[in-house]
């Protein structure tokens, strides 16, 4: 590309139609709302993890419903690990100084997307293990008990939900990997 051509492209680039001035007050107000929404989300997530933990403890102490204990155990481990990893990324993201040179900040951006890929991979692996454990449990239950018909639809629903979750986590992980590839180009 010749210098003239680049100069022409610069002029073309900079001659985009003028847009109205930005309303900064509205922007600041939107930012405040987003901040409080994020704080609210963090509080709700914390309470949910604690609630699942509490339910798990009470179910284990009651000791009479193995299926429920399994579900709650899986939900507690998955939610706790995801909660810790998400908040680690949030903190890392807050600390990312926007005024650094791109050469300094790119490794941190890449680290953040790798953390996201790890979270989706962990979710997928945990869900797969839980699905296999559940299917094993169903199979044993079926072989041991004569009458399982009444519970069959619940088992099938559980497996379908878990398989959909696996597909979702796989899709999110692949999207994050594409983003990592874009950032690394």
């Amino acid at each position, binding site marked *: *590309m010749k210098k003239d051509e680049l100069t022409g492209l610069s002029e073309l*680039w900079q001659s985009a139609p*003028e847009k109205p001035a930005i309303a900064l007050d509205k*922007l600041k107000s939107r930012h405040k709302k987003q901040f409080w929404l994020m704080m609210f989300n963090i509080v709700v997530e914390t309470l949910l993890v604690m609630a699942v933990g509490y339910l798990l403890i009470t179910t284990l102490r009651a000791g009479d419903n193995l299926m429920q204990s399994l579900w709650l155990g899986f939900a507690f481990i998955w939610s706790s690990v995801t909660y810790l990893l998400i908040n680690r990324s949030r903190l890392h993201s807050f600390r*990312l100084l926007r005024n650094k*040179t791109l050469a300094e900040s790119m490794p941190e951006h890449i680290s953040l997307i790798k953390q996201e890929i790890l979270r989706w991979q962990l979710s997928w692996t945990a869900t797969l293990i839980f699905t296999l454990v559940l299917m094993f449990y169903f199979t044993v239950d079926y072989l041991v008990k004569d009458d399982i018909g009444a519970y069959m639809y619940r088992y099938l629903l559980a497996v379908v939900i878990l398989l959909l979750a696996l597909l979702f986590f796989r899709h999110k992980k692949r999207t994050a990997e594409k983003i990592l590839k874009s950032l690394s180009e």
Partner: protein
Amino acid sequence: MQFGDNKDMLNDQREQTVQQYWSRILRAASGYEARPAMRDELAQDMALAVWRSLSGFGGQCSLNTYIYRVIHNVAVDHIRRHSRATECELADEIVDDNNSPEGDLIQARRQQKLIIAVNRLPLSLRQVMLLKLEDLNNTEIGDVLGLSDSNVAVRLNRAKQKLSDLLAGAEQ
């Protein structure tokens, strides 16, 4: 340029600076995001980040360099948090505006093709090209990106070649 200690004066100066850079922010946003709704959101995020970051500006580099660093960091953050537009979405962004006079329409279409071509550049080449299109020299580009002059020159050559190929492909 130094920003005053008085809070009101600081706020006024910051707002003025953001308004001054608003058209550059919009252009930078269009270079990273072709989808209109997300582009507007990105531009707003960039403006807000610039406004917030200005209180930390202490003359460590030129104001221009400082602001461009913030803008491009926010853009990379945006790419990380949102998936990129697919090729189909990029192709659909060519504007078909039958209401403008012919000269304006041709200009608008050329601009849109340039924007799409820039969006198709790999990230490292896109950053250099976006800064060059804003008339920054190689040293200034190096200050924003944290690269040496020679590194900038190499990337710029590759970016120009790639952009030429993309624009030629768009013409066919």
